[in-house]
């Protein structure tokens, strides 16, 4: 695929265009049945975005229900351990339900209610988005169906039980690789079947326009807070931002408000699984090429025939063969530097953070911490790294125990 030579735009924050494109990425690649719904959603979101009462309601729930703002915490012992850059953690794991996912869910369910929708569906990988969706559905009294790959149900049983406690119906998806991408297929099939009353809460910055932009906007609270908090703590912006990226919602949420601050370097960390050369990873930018899946054009793991290849990561939340279209664009134009971390590196970082900071990070976020571990020691002491601790690791203890050979 020939790429147009990257041009430096005046602003990195203006996308997408009216067709939902970030450069060549994004778009609306959905069946005709869904097209009128997507257009309705786009209009409803546009109205809501410009309505101060919607913003006020969102802010209320973010503060009093989610627990925002989340702290920006100076990780003194990790900083001392690596002996270089100062490391700050954006504590998204302290949000209600334990991850950044709820920021988006609150936004979308308020929109669903505004649109008069009566039923909520969602896909989930690790279960964090499923739990967050089930939580807001319970709070607003809407019935909720969560599609989850059978493989993921087996490796994330605590979250499955949580969703059920919250009153959601969890539907095991047995098609394809039985993971996140298949759960998304199944949610789309549900949506085309029950178009009249259903709102589909997509959990990441992927899917047809307007989802990538809408989910980003709801997650951008992470970056806006971080900016203000860092200015307060250090009197200046950070030098480097780090976040893990699967679909990429926590990453774009942190990055987006900083994209035009060109002095801020931005590193996003893909899941390298058993290694980039092993064929068992989820690094769609490192090893994929542009294609079309789930309503948008983006980098995908695929074979020569354009068939989608199953991703692998120890972290179910990164186990997706694609990435949000805005990330693909940011990669091509070079504004964000995409790197990767293996399962093992993530496991090591998981344990290190637990032992030094008393914080058990999600395996997803541990990929970001692993990258911080690689760069922090080589950077001067006045260099500031801000890393998004996007979720807590309580859900992962069974996976980690099994990887470490411990019996629970």
């Amino acid at each position: 695929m020939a790429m147009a030579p990257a041009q430096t735009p005046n602003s990195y924050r203006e996308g997408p265009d009216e067709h939902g494109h970030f450069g060549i990425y994004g778009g609306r690649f959905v069946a005709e049945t869904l097209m009128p719904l997507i257009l309705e959603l786009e209009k409803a979101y546009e109205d809501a975005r410009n309505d101060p009462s919607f913003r006020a309601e969102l802010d209320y729930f973010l503060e009093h229900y989610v627990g925002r703002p989340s702290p920006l915490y100076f990780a003194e012992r990790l900083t001392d351990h690596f002996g270089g850059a100062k490391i700050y953690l954006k504590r998204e794991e302290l949000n209600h339900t334990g991850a950044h996912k709820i920021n988006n869910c609150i936004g979308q369910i308020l929109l669903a209610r505004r649109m008069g929708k009566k039923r909520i569906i969602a896909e989930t990988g690790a279960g964090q988005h499923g739990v967050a969706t089930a939580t807001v559905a319970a709070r607003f009294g809407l019935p909720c169906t969560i599609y989850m790959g059978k493989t993921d149900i087996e490796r994330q049983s605590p979250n499955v039980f949580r969703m059920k406690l919250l009153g959601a119906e969890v539907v095991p998806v047995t098609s394809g690789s039985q993971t996140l991408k298949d759960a998304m297929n199944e949610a789309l099939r549900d949506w085309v079947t029950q178009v009249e009353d259903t709102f589909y809460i997509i959990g990441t910055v992927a899917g047809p326009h307007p989802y990538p932009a809408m989910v980003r906007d709801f997650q951008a609270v992470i970056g806006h807070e971080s900016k203000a908090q860092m200015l307060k703590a250090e009197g200046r912006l950070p030098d480097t931002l780090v976040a893990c990226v699967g679909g990429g919602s926590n990453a774009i949420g942190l990055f987006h408000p900083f994209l035009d601050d060109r002095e801020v370097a931005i590193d996003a960390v893909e899941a390298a699984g058993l290694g980039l050369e092993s064929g068992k990873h989820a690094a769609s930018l490192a090893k994929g090429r542009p294609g079309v899946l789930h309503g948008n054009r983006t980098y995908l793991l695929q074979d020569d025939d354009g068939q989608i290849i199953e991703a692998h990561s120890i972290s179910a939340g990164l186990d997706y063969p694609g990435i949000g279209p805005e990330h693909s664009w940011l990669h091509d134009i070079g504004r964000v530097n995409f790197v990767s971390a293996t399962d093992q590196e993530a496991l090591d970082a998981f344990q290190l953070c637990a032992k030094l900071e008393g914080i058990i990070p999600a395996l997803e976020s541990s990929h970001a911490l692993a990258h911080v571990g690689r760069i922090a020691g080589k950077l001067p002491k006045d260099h500031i790294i801000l890393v998004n601790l996007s979720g807590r690791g309580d859900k992962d203890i069974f996976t980690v125990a099994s990887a470490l050979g411990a019996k629970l």
Partner: protein
Amino acid sequence: MTVARIDARFAALKAEGRPGLVVFVTAGDPDLETSFEVIRALPGAGADVIEIGMPFTDPMADGPAIQAAGLRALAGGQTLVKTLDLVRRFRETDQATPIVLMGYYNPIYSYGVPRFLTDAKAAGIDGLIVVDLPTEEDPELCLPALEQDIAFIRLATPTTDDKRLPTVLRHTSGFVYYVSINGITGSASPDCNAVAAAVARLKRHTDLPIAVGFGIRTPEQAAEIGGNADAAVVGSAVVSMIGEASAQGLSGKALADRISAFVATLAAGVRGAKRSAA
């Protein structure tokens, strides 16, 4: 030929005063040679138009039957290159029956749109149905296909309202595929009166023939739906039968014979249909 082959077939059907039968099978299901035998026998069994599914790992608009067919084909090593070759071989035996490829965009995008259109035309493909390319994405494939005289057949659905229909129909050629239910392939059966009303609505916006599909499984349904449209599409019921026959150990001509026998009953259904549509 291309668009002209589809137009000629529907003109002939109109002259005969009966609706057509469109049969869907997945390329390479359950294996390449058996699939060729099945497709080659379809015109003789009474299929007026053949839709050939291009297998894809993530068929978002398809129900379990067509998902399973795609997986069988992929497991057998089916690729888009092989699918085009299958059509080329079919064309050596049949010059009159329109062939429409149906599937998802990514394998075509991966193949490269200009190269795909050149090769598809050379193979004898007349039309394309690409589920995840709504009119909003027409510059991707629809407009280049029309330049090559390959029909781009659009899906219209119950959610496509009168305001949107002209947009949807704008670059449609060959025929319009009316998806009779909100849902995935092979699910609930359509309501006949609703279909008749929908076809009448479509006819107010287009002179193109209207084929109706999704959920038609029996000769009776084919006759009933066909009576209200220009053609009935049967897919999941046929590929389910291919799956069952394959699981029973049938392949090659033996499997093709069983499918032909079923298609012949569907064909008898549409041939007996009382035609109420324009």
